[in-house]
């Protein structure tokens, strides 16, 4: 073997919880240095473009929050499910359907209902996401079909459902047969923070929906740490035998976990269509539902770690764009960089839970296998 030995720490190292991400970033910088130098780019400029530039002005910070917000929201919902060993992979599809529900409400009623429309859309979005997640929950809880496969397959179906709607019944008659709905009126849009008098956000796209996410963080924490249902889900995930013994319904767990994830994804869907997009088209979510899975894992399924992870992922995306614009770095390289950073982060986490020692030890005498 390689001559390193890991011993599990009695308690996760507090110091390492802060140091390991720093070490990961440092390692990525070192490798990135080599990569950028090989590409003929000044590494300092490249890192500046990646990490500093995107957040160097109010607009940048607003965009960072705008991008991190749906990632955080969905990840919070998914993490609750993952802790309960319910693997909802279909957040993308639930987001589509949630956005579609909200759109249906908007384009049908936006001229009839006034200010009440947006709250109704928010509720509709959550219901839409939950409805789509319910299909998976049903298949898993009642029919024992694996939720990973069902939720993933349903994501593709959700995409097609939305395409059907915008190419068909919901298509804007003025749109020259292009797949768009009518643009939403003001009462169907989340108000911009700038328009509410928060002048620091003037000129940015940050809107009221950020508060949905901000509210979701303590709610998720509270649910996981303090409610009985949260406890049941947790036990169901950690020790299913004990959960059954205690009478916690396994089916109930699946339903609750899927519905929470679906609601979160559906809400995120509303914040997109009623936010920066202002309408429904056939290609509007750049994989948020899947990125949120990484965010949940990176945030260690913790309602306090997830917002940080979401900010990091959002920064990586924005940095990749900035690197393209400022340095003409190919998009592929920014993906490489993202992947590297993520893998270093994950690798360095070992230091939190384990002590690493160099040992000189002979290969252990192998029992016949």
């Amino acid at each position, binding site marked *: 073997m390689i001559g390193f030995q890991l011993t599990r720490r009695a308690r996760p190292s507090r110091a390492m919880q802060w140091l390991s991400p720093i070490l990961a970033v440092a390692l990525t910088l070192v490798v990135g240095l080599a990569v950028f130098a090989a590409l003929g780019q000044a590494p300092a400029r490249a890192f500046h473009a990646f990490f500093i530039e995107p957040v160097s002005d109010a607009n940048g910070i607003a965009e960072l929050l705008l991008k991190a917000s749906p990632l955080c929201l969905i990840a919070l919902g998914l993490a609750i499910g993952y802790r309960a060993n319910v693997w909802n992979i279909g957040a993308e599809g639930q987001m589509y359907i949630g956005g579609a529900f909200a759109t249906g409400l908007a384009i049908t009623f936006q001229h009839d209902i006034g200010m009440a429309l947006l709250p109704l859309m928010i509720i509709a979005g959550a219901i839409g996401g939950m409805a789509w997640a319910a299909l998976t929950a049903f298949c898993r809880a009642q029919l024992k079909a694996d939720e990973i496969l069902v939720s993933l397959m349903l994501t593709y179906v959700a995409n097609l459902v939305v395409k059907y709607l915008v190419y068909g019944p919901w298509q804007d008659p003025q749109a*020259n047969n292009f797949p768009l709905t009518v643009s939403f009126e003001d009462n169907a849009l989340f108000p911009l923070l700038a328009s509410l008098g928060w002048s620091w956000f003037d*000129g940015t796209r940050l809107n009221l929906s950020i508060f949905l996410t901000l509210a979701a963080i303590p709610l998720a924490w509270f649910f996981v740490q303090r409610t009985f249902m949260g406890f049941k889900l947790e036990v169901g995930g950690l020790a299913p035998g004990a959960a059954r013994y205690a009478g916690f319904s396994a089916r109930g767990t699946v339903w609750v976990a899927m519905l929470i994830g679906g609601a979160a994804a559906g809400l995120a869907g509303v914040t*997109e269509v009623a936010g*920066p*997009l*202002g309408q429904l088209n056939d*290609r*509007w979510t750049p994989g948020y539902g899947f990125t949120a899975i990484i965010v949940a894992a990176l945030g260690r399924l913790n309602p306090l770690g997830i917002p940080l992870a979401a900010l990091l992922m959002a920064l990586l995306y924005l940095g990749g764009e900035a690197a393209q614009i400022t340095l*003409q770095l190919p998009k592929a390289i920014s993906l490489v960089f993202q992947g590297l950073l993520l893998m270093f982060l994950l690798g360095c986490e070992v230091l939190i839970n384990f002590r690493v020692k160099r040992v000189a030890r002979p290969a252990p005498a192998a029992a016949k296998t």
Partner: protein
Amino acid sequence: MKRWKAGLAGAIFAAGAAAVTAVGAADPLKVAFVYVGPVGDGGWTFAHDLGRKALEKNLDGKVKATFVENVPEGADAERVIRDLATKGNQLIFTTSFGYMDATLKVAKSFPKTEFYHATGFKSASNVTIYNSRMYEPAYLSGIIAGNVSKSGVLGFVASFPIPEVVRNIDAFTMGARSVNPKITTKVVWVNTWYDPSKERQAAEALIGQGADVLLQNTDSSAVLQTAQDKGVHAFGWDSDMSAYAPKAHLASNVEVWGGYYTRAVQAALDGKPLHDNVWGGIKEGMNDLVAVSPELPEAVRKAVAAKKAEIAAGKFAVFSGPIKGNDGTVKVAAGKALTDKEIDSINWYAEGVEGQLPK
């Protein structure tokens, strides 16, 4: 003033004047391109990037053209476009339909920047639309197909039921029927712009139903590849695809953006930026049928070249009557031609196309 002070003042003045004129003369115009796919897609974005490279070559030193690739058409687009405008790009070309509203939104905040949006239909005082008439080379491809097809059945692998695609199907079929009035076209919708696996299976389905010449408006060469594997013929789309499948390849339908981009930037350099919406085809040099296969009979190549010349001279419009729809009704009367607006929102199949438009 003491001599040396005068000298110093003079030197400073001269240096300052030189600096000012140097800045004024040498600062290249910053322009930017927003791409929906990767430049390596060998298709739509690849063609735009060829145009950008041509622009840089034609106006060497006077322009600095950068690009951002793989920009999703949702909320991210607005951010990228805005970023480019903030960074001082004077002309921004957004090369996909899905950037339409984002372009308009950003244009409002940057009245001094010129925006050019491809394949859209909304314009503004500083947002100009441009598009190419892919249906013209598609018609020419139809002529070739009409001559080559032995089964009398053509196949079209189509992405989405939008006017741009429908008119290509129609033009292809009409071109083929001008040679063989009995030819029909089967259409398969794959509901994606790029998915080689799906495109391949669509081509296999069409070939299985007897199609022996295929055309597609999706972004990979999978259809062409499949055609070669199965011993039938096909065309390239968006770029010269002859290298992929030399035996099956008949010709490639391409957009040529370099000329337009050069014109647009030159106009801006001259202080008179282009504001007229442009929908150019073969005549304006914005479309072409290239790499016509040398295996084709001389007569066919002559016929295609002749038709191309007619289009280039403005003597032949693809959508000039009489044209019947595949439901039997007359869509364009004899002596009349569809207006650009009608072509832009076309929603019927021409006679010879099998089936109905999905709706």
